[in-house]
């Protein structure tokens, strides 16, 4: 399973990457939603987008999530934020701070709910 992790806080990005890798997931990181979009446009097809919401740059995590859902409806999306006012109910949102157990449970549930695109060979655990 392949996760695209978008987080602007450098330390947290590094930690989350390690936790996800430890849990046996393949991880690609991006610092901003803008950068993540470039990565998508470059052809990367992860199984899950795990993104912070408020980040520097032109796009917020929410914009990115909406854009991704339109382009790749089968991709699982999980957002995380330290602010309370950003939960619009469109996506599952994790509240910071969260323990890794919570994160991994949410990641697993999100991945279980996603349907693989025909022919892309992803296996649902």
């Amino acid at each position, binding site marked *: 399973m392949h996760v695209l992790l978008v987080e602007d*806080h*450098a*330390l*947290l990005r590094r*930690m*989350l990457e*390690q*936790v996800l890798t*430890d849990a046996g997931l393949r991880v690609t990181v991006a*610092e901003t939603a803008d*950068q993540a979009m470039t990565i998508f446009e470059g052809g990367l097809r992860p199984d899950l987008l795990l993104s912070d919401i408020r980040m*520097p*740059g*032109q796009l917020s995590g929410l914009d990115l999530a909406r854009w991704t859902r339109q382009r790749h409806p089968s991709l699982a999306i999980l957002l995380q934020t*330290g*602010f*309370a*006012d950003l*939960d619009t109910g469109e996506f599952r949102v994790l*509240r*910071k*701070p*969260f*323990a*890794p*157990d919570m994160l991994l449970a949410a990641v697993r549930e999100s991945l279980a709910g996603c349907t693989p695109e025909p022919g892309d060979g992803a296996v649902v655990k």
Partner: protein
Amino acid sequence: MLLCVWLLPGLAPPARAGCYADLLGKDAPFAERIEHDPQAAIALIDAQLSAPARGTGRPSRAHLYAMRADALESIGNVDAARSAVEAGVQALTPADDALLRRRLRLTASLLLKEQGHLDRAMIEFGPDSAESLGDVPDLACVLYYRGSLRFRAGQNVGAAEDFMRAYQLARNLGRAEVRLLAGQMLARLYAKYDLYTDAHELADEAIGFYSASRGPLRLADAFFLRGDINLSQDDYVHAADDFLRARALLESAALPLEVVFAWQELCVTASRDTRRMDASAVCREAYERTRATDDPEGVKMMLGALGEIAFRGGHPAEAVGLWDRALGDDGVDFPPRMRWRFHRLRAQALTRIGDVAAAARDENYCLDALEADRSARSAEQLALLHVKFETSFKDEELARSRAEMQAAELTISRQAFIRNAVIGAAVLAVVTVLFATRMWSRRKLAVDARKAAEQQLAAVGRLTGGIAHDFNNLLSVMLQALWLLGRRASVAEDSVACDLVSQARRSSEICADITSQLLSFARQQNLVPEAVRLGACLADLRPLLERTVGSAAGLYIEVEEPEPVAWADPRQLSAALLNLVTNARDAMISGGKILIRVCNDSGRRVRLDVVDDGCGMASDILARAIEPFFTTKPVGRGSGLGLSMVDGFATQSGGALSVSSVLHRGTTVSLWLPAMVS
């Protein structure tokens, strides 16, 4: 005035004599001579200095040296003027008054600054000199001067405080030039700390003022300022607009060097938003023009911008080459934020071309630098906001005392009128007018004060929200790191290490709870409301509440029939109740009774009362009880956030909170929440 002449070129003509006549009244003849014929004045002063015997009533040696410095400075001999000041400081005796002492230090500081010795100028000026020079009519100028010294030395908070005070003072004195100069510096600092609304307000004010007059250079400067603010907000369209207008003004004024600055700013803007302008043409032009001037820092910035364009255009290798040249360590100063930006981008470009080791070096550089910057910035931003409140309150007091003064003047003129025109109707009319004016101004003052308090509260809320958000990120880091640590074999096998990890995790979780309380007082709490049956909820909470109260007081719970059902977040409601009960317990000095009463209020709301018969509050304490960080508990016992947190929860849930209290009799806190509509 001297200060203003130095600081603000192009202002009113110098009036040195006037300035010093105030300070050294008895030396007025010297002062006049210094202005009209400095050479003759120096000769006269030298003759006085070399005279061995001195009678009373003549200027002291320190006085003479101060005047000599002034005369030398006025003929442009800065070095000799400084020696004179130093001699003056040496010659000071206890008989010299404090004002002379301060004047010498101030002159020394100005001269040092003139010679480019910024650090020494600061030291000479001293931290408190501005205040001690308060009797000089140019305090606003002095403050502006010290602000610019501090700004250049990187003491941003101190600089901001000076600029704020200079701005307000100049505004109150009606001195537009000083006000606008201080305002523009302040705008730069606000933008640096992301306080964009304030920054824009000040920049727009400057643009408005300079549009009317004062020549193209000042106006172009104001456009540069607003452009920079827009740029730091990533608003490239408006930034480019501002820089284009600055460039047009400077071109029409035939200021070639300044035109190059405008090209540079346009280049930086274009390199970040390659879609809108012909970025490479703009940047190449800016680069060539910069190279033609003696500006190594500018050249490096242009190289960096060209690198950004190459990178966005899909040429990472070329970009890396340009950034290598821009970031090369050759002693040329570079704005740190730009430096990080280019390091970060270079890391990305290096990753693209497969040089992972070099990318990691850049990434690590940015990580360290940005972490250090971020923590320093939050602390400085907090300090800046604090200064802003303090200053704005001082200003309000000043405005109030001026209003009172005007009211008093009004009264006096009315009385004169009454004496002169002895007509009953006029008396009546005047009294009516006076009464109405008084009433009106009193009401206006009360409204202003309340508005200021609300604004302060809202700003503290925003600030707290921001800090809590930073904490949430950092706590997440700690929780992930501890989890990873706990999974390592060497830790898992070591029971002591395991215990330490779990203790650290436990305290991180407590921190997370505190952060969430902060957010709730900042009214940014994430609430998940649901139907809460209050009787059942209180029954669940009872053991915890009883433990909190302890054996000293009795806890009673009364629930009305039918059982009230609230629409609220159950976790936050429990936390709020626990807070109220803790407060009630702390109000009990020698035992008593705490009653929690729940009832249906009008069918659309439910009310929870927490009633105690403890020590109660006097009216002045009661008035501040909900205020954040206000507490009467001993240090370490209460954060002062309890009631304001409950208030935040109530407001955000669509309810309300009210506190009533009688000293020595007890307190009742009522919490209203929306009722569940079946």
